[in-house]
């Protein structure tokens, strides 16, 4: 009865958008994981004679202002981007999930207090917060992750809270209570599985945003330390040397475009499959 094509994975495989998204994501993740095997050059090796080279068989995406291989550096940048992305989304998502459920189930005053915190953090511009924190904290990935978590957990919190509130008063939860289900059983067996769908959609949509924040902070010089091969620093080098070569800025933007497309498509495909109202007939 529950053949593969009826499972979530099966339904995703039948959706061309999802297949494309998964291919893009798998390629990017694969390139980040096997960066050392794929790269033909040491990402930090300088070769001044070949600086600002155009793409060639030797340098697939050209070289930067110090003659370093851009492709090899982008592979390393992928590791940073995915590390920051997954860690920050994981932490922010968990905090948001817990606080959202607490707000949804808690007393009115606690709900209002948490909503106030969510709204305040959401209203605060990310870049301003990033610059302020960068001035206070040592430069590095930890700071980037803290900035992302602070600015994005409220989004998960709000979504989870809304879902929890509407589910809390739904008839099937009432039916479960009438069957003698305890509070914990209702929260973990009935509310949580219903909340996770929208939660994962949001997480998939949010991941490229997080990666872009990391790139943006590195571009502004408040992200990873200088010299680290991040997508943002590559963009910054391309921006600084736009008169010498157009290739650097194009190459630096390319992975950002791909990661955004991949995860946005995945989020949309997940939404189509997880939201019963949008789901087409089997």
């Amino acid at each position, binding site marked *: *009865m*529950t053949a593969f094509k009826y499972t979530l994975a099966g339904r995703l495989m039948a959706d061309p958008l999802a297949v494309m998204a998964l291919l893009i994501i798998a390629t990017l993740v694969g390139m980040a994981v096997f960066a050392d095997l794929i790269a033909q050059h040491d990402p930090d090796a300088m070769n001044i004679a070949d600086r600002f080279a155009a793409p060639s068989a030797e340098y697939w995406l050209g070289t930067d202002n110090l003659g370093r291989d851009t492709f090899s550096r982008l592979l390393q940048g992928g590791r940073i981007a995915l590390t920051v992305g997954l860690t920050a989304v994981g932490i922010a998502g968990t905090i948001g999930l817990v606080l959202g459920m607490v707000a949804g189930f808690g007393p009115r005053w606690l709900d209002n207090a948490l909503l106030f915190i969510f709204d305040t953090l959401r209203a605060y511009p990310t870049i301003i917060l990033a610059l302020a924190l960068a001035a206070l904290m040592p430069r590095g990935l930890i700071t980037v992750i803290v900035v992302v978590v602070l600015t994005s957990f409220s989004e998960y919190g709000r979504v989870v809270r809304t879902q929890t509130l509407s589910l809390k008063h*739904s*008839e*099937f939860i*009432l*039916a*479960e*209570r*009438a*069957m*003698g*289900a*305890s509070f914990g*059983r209702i929260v973990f*067996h*009935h509310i949580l*599985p*219903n909340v996770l*769908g929208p939660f994962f959609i949001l997480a998939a949509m949010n991941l490229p945003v997080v990666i872009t924040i990391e790139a943006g902070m590195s571009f502004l010089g408040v992200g990873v330390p200088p010299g680290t091969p991040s997508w943002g620093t590559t963009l910054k080098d391309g921006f600084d040397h736009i008169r010498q070569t157009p290739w650097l800025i194009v190459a630096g933007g390319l992975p950002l475009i791909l990661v955004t497309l991949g995860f946005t498509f995945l989020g949309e495909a997940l939404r189509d499959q997880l939201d*019963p109202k949008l789901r087409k007939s*089997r």
Partner: protein
Amino acid sequence: MTEAVLETVPDALSAHELSVGYDTRQGRLQALRDVSLDVRAGEIVGVVGESGCGKSTLISTLMRLLPENAHVADGCVELDGEDILTASPRRLRAMRGREMSVVFQDPMTSLNPVLTIGRQMRDIQYREGISKAEKDRRAAHMLGRVGLPDPEAKLRTYPHELSGGMRQRVAIAMATLMHPKLLIADEPTTALDATLEVQIIALLQEIQAEIGCAILFISHHLGVIAELCDRVVVMYAGETVEEGPVADIFEHPAHPYTAKLIECDPGRLKQRAETLPSIPGSLPDLTDPPPGCIFRDRCDLATDLCARQRPSRRAVTPGRWSACHHAEKVSP
């Protein structure tokens, strides 16, 4: 069963002088006032009344599932001699599902959409201390019992894969899985079409005969009540106005509201009417209920007495009472 035999059967459910109010911005809304109700073991009792008469509040009170702004001002509810309103939360959870359970109105919303039927039915048996396979076996047996084809396969389906009628059968299977002493059916056929309604009613009768539970059947549909129930309790604006055996009440109502309700049943119209009959007037404001009889503004028989004095329950015939000063004038 004769009256003499009925008297000796113990009450499965006994609600006595229940008064329940909701705190609203307009003040305290008195949703139930002095409601008394007995359901004997193995008996099917109908509760009938129009929207807003307190049927849902009654169910919530009996199951102690009232929202936070509700207060039980007075009265007690006993299930098999055990007080529900003062039971510990732990004991209450143990009683729900096992001793009493509910089938809700809309089967499209009363099942968890993201869990399989099997998972939900295993969940209900979580206190049983039996293996997963045994839980599945019992669940499948119950699904087969309520008339679902291929019950083992149904355990692996999600609610959205089933039709409304099948879902209501699943809901009935879930509610009766633990063989409760009391099954509360909250308008279980209102959301279904007429053909299914007949099937579900027949199913409830079969289940009742098989596991011997008492059924409290809530409905606004007189035909269904007449078909299914032994006794009927008529509710109006938060009060019980009349109670007695189904046939007696429908043939000789002893409360003007019951009489009007029967007149308004479209099923008994002999010929096509331009407009369907209705009871003129509307429900009184329950935040400030008028003194005297609650129905007098809409009643043809109302006198000065009705405005002054709230009618008490008067025995009409044995086993039957009406809360009307003029009960004997209702059915000439």
